[in-house]
């Protein structure tokens, strides 16, 4: 179902997008997270990205697990339905919802506890199933909502607020996602909206499972000296390897890059994704080399960011299953119920 929203009288200063909506139409209730929490910047980036994409807000469905991060779908796209499910199990909710209606845009928000600990199994399997969605992890290396325990993405040796070092090796969700077959894998930083917004836009438009690991500092429990997920540490150690920008059909191309350094990817809605390589040796279309690069950077204490892996024209879950063009939730009874005549044949076959 698509509805053309009625144009409304607008504050002249609020810029409208192609469908006449302002940024405010993409907002929701005010956040109750701690002031300065990285997660709020991610929400702001989502709002900005969706507004710029000019997709009507109600065409999105928001899904999340449990955690401070998972609360954030309340704080963006107020006109979209949201489902704040149970801890670590958002992927199964997203899979079921997507199977029921393939026509909506799905945005999943999870935390590092939610996706890398309790929900690691579901995280792995939603990637395998190639659910068409944009899956964001607000990665702060800690359990914010339960007050600061280490999470599984916390680096070994990184210290807690009380100065205790973490003794266990981290799980890198980006590496996992590349390895398990995600067709769009990116990493960014909540403090870098220049980088994050285009990534979210591209992830939403990408047909396939798009994953963004957003380092999103927890000002309350993991922003101190000694933490590798603090604002300061992340600012000093990010290594952007690919710069992505999304050129909408109506946009003028203003910047011309040197030939050989940009890759241009046409998107399904007519827009164009431009990837600019900041590092010569980076190959974003090759799983093995992308994985190697990401892991090498990690060994060196650097955080590779940008659109780290992209496979265009990936198959999705519905292609694999061969499901009907009409979404399941729109199928009429005639297409679902085989009727009495068929049932009589079945009865006969059981006699």
């Amino acid at each position, binding site marked *: 179902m698509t509805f053309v929203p009625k144009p409304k009288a607008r504050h002249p200063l609020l810029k409208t997008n192609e469908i006449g909506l302002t940024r405010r139409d993409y907002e929701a209730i005010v956040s109750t997270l701690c002031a300065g929490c990285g997660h709020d910047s991610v929400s702001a980036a989502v709002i900005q990205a969706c507004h710029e994409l000019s997709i009507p807000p109600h065409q999105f469905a928001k899904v999340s697990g449990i955690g401070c991060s998972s609360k954030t779908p309340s704080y963006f796209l107020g006109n979209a*339905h949201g489902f704040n499910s149970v801890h670590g*199990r958002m992927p199964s909710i997203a899979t079921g919802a997507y*199977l029921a209606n393939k026509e909506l845009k799905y945005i999943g928000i999870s935390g590092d506890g939610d996706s890398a600990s309790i929900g690691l199994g579901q995280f792995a399997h939603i990637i395998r199933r190639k659910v068409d969605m944009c899956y964001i992890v607000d990665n702060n290396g800690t359990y914010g909502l339960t007050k600061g325990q280490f999470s599984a993405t916390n680096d070994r040796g990184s210290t807690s607020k009380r100065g205790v070092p973490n003794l266990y090796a981290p799980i890198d969700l980006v590496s996992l996602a590349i390895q398990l077959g995600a067709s769009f894998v990116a990493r960014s930083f909540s403090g870098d909206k220049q980088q994050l917004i285009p990534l979210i836009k591209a992830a939403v438009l990408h047909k396939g499972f798009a994953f963004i690991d957003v380092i999103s500092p927890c000002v309350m429990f993991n922003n101190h000296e000694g933490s590798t997920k603090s604002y300061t540490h992340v600012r000093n150690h990010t290594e952007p390897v690919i710069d992505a920008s999304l050129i909408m059909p109506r946009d003028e191309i203003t910047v011309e890059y040197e030939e050989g350094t940009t890759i241009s990817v046409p998107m399904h809605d007519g827009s164009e994704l431009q990837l600019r390589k900041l590092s010569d040796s980076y190959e974003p279309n090759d799983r093995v080399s992308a994985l190697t690069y990401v892991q090498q950077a990690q060994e060196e204490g650097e955080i590779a960011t940008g659109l780290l892996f992209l496979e265009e024209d990936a198959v999705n879950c519905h292609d694999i299953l*061969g499901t*009907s063009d009409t979404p399941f939730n729109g199928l009429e009874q005639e*297409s*679902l119920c085989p009727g009495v005549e068929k049932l009589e044949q079945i009865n006969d076959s059981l006699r």
Partner: protein
Amino acid sequence: MTSFNEFVIRFANVNGSGSASANGMFAKALFRMGIPVTTRNIFPSNIQGLPTWFEVRASSREYFGRRDKVDIMVAMNAETYKEDVNRLESGGYLIYDSTRGRPRELYRDDVHEIGIPITKLILSEFSDPKQRQLFKNIVYVGSLSALLDMEFDVLTSMVASQYRGKDKLIQPNIRALELGRNYVLKYLPCPMEIQVKRADLVGDRILVDGNEAAALGAIYGGATLCAWYPITPSTSVADTFEKHASRLRVDPKTKKKNFAIIQAEDELSAIGMVIGAGWNGARAFTATSGPGISLMNEFLGLAYFAEVPAVVFDVQRAGPSTGMPTRTQQSDLLSVAFASHGDTKHPILLPATPKECFDFAADAFDLAERIQSPVIVMTDLELGMNQTLSDPFQWDDSRQYDRGKVLDFEDLEQIERYGRYVDVDGDGIGYRTLPGTHPSKGSFFTRGSSRNEWAVYTEDAQSYINNMDRLNKKWETIRSLMPSSEVEHRNGRAGIIYFGTTTTPMNESLGLLDENGITLNSLRIRSYPFGPEVAEFIDAHEKIFLVEQNRDAQMKSLLSFDLGIDPKKFVSILYYGGFSISADYIVDEVTEHYVVNKLPRLREVES
């Protein structure tokens, strides 16, 4: 004295030896001769090598319960030979492979022994090792056809239709049948005193198991997503859903499917997908057994509290823990009724026959969307995995799915302010909207945290209480929508309550008890929460026998919980050995109660 169409035959085989299809063919042949039959698989949690048994009970009186002793034993497994011989009724028939000798000490002079050199016959006729193994089973079916005086062409025509398209296999199978048949005709007194005779007692009924019936019910009920994780004894629900949906739900032109099956990574994920699809307006279900229900607990609580439709089939097996995975029980009752933490409760449907599995499966989808909550259909291994005589499936083409209270774009246009949990109609059920319906109205946030009726997060005590009380009001609406119990008054003084597969032997138990001078009025529970007729029935009797297949009398707790009945009112009859409860067991327990308490066995003549 010759008896007709009234016996239990047991086949003792080794798991993985290919006996299932031969045994099934035998049962089907009786059924096609118009004789009421039921079958029972007794199998180990193993793929190959361990003992398995298959029982067929033929009964013109339709006494279909499990019996401890059997009339005919086809003893094909040396390992269980002793046990099998002992299981025979005095005067029964022991059929065995006489190719090699057998232990002397196991001779019983009170049974008829029928030795057939099955292996020898096979070796002389077939050279392919695989056929030699498989056709042993066909040979004894051939022998039985003569021993029981069955119509041989019923068997041969079944072989012909079973292997249609693989014509090369028809002749050898018929040859194997003839080998067994001709041997006994030539060398042994035929037929036995137990015989079959064509009858007209089956009518238009069908032979099917509960899992397949439930899967078909799900298809007719409009299910589009089956998300599941393999577990005995529920697996064949998903398997047969796939089998039938692949025929019935594929667009003839585009070849695209109007259904999806996802084998999830575990049961948490399976129920999560069902809830995600239900939230988004598609009918979805999962099928599982006790351990899966345990894993689904958190999600079931979410669906109860967030009010999302979902359908779950729990095909029960014996627990706790892995318990006896290939045995039957009714021991998940409480864990299902209260699945999840907090004040959570779920409605349950309790079918007793394959026909009811079909009906309740289809109804469950209407119900779940009407009440916006999980509905759990509880069967067990006995019903789910054994083919039994059943009324044919029925469907009324004028029936319309009840999609419940869902507002569409036009509805929302008419509304001033939408509130997801506002009890507009006073039945405790609010109006849902589906994602994507309207650009500016009707969106809300679904969550397991407390909220007010406008779906706004709140920790306010009164809002929480209001919401919980509304859910209780909804519970009363649910009660009014559940199928009511089956009550039979026979002028008894006491009553007996039962449910699910206890129904199978109950017919026989009530008959036998009546012969012993104990007449009982009966009530079969078909759902929970209980309808008013349950309280009425209990009130009307001084004593109520309550039959359950679990250790802790879980239904008694549920009746006390839901209706406030004094548990002392019940005399529990409990069987939890993992086989289905037998008619004799019920009879003995009831009778003993009268003997121990020195009660007169009164048949009440009501004034």
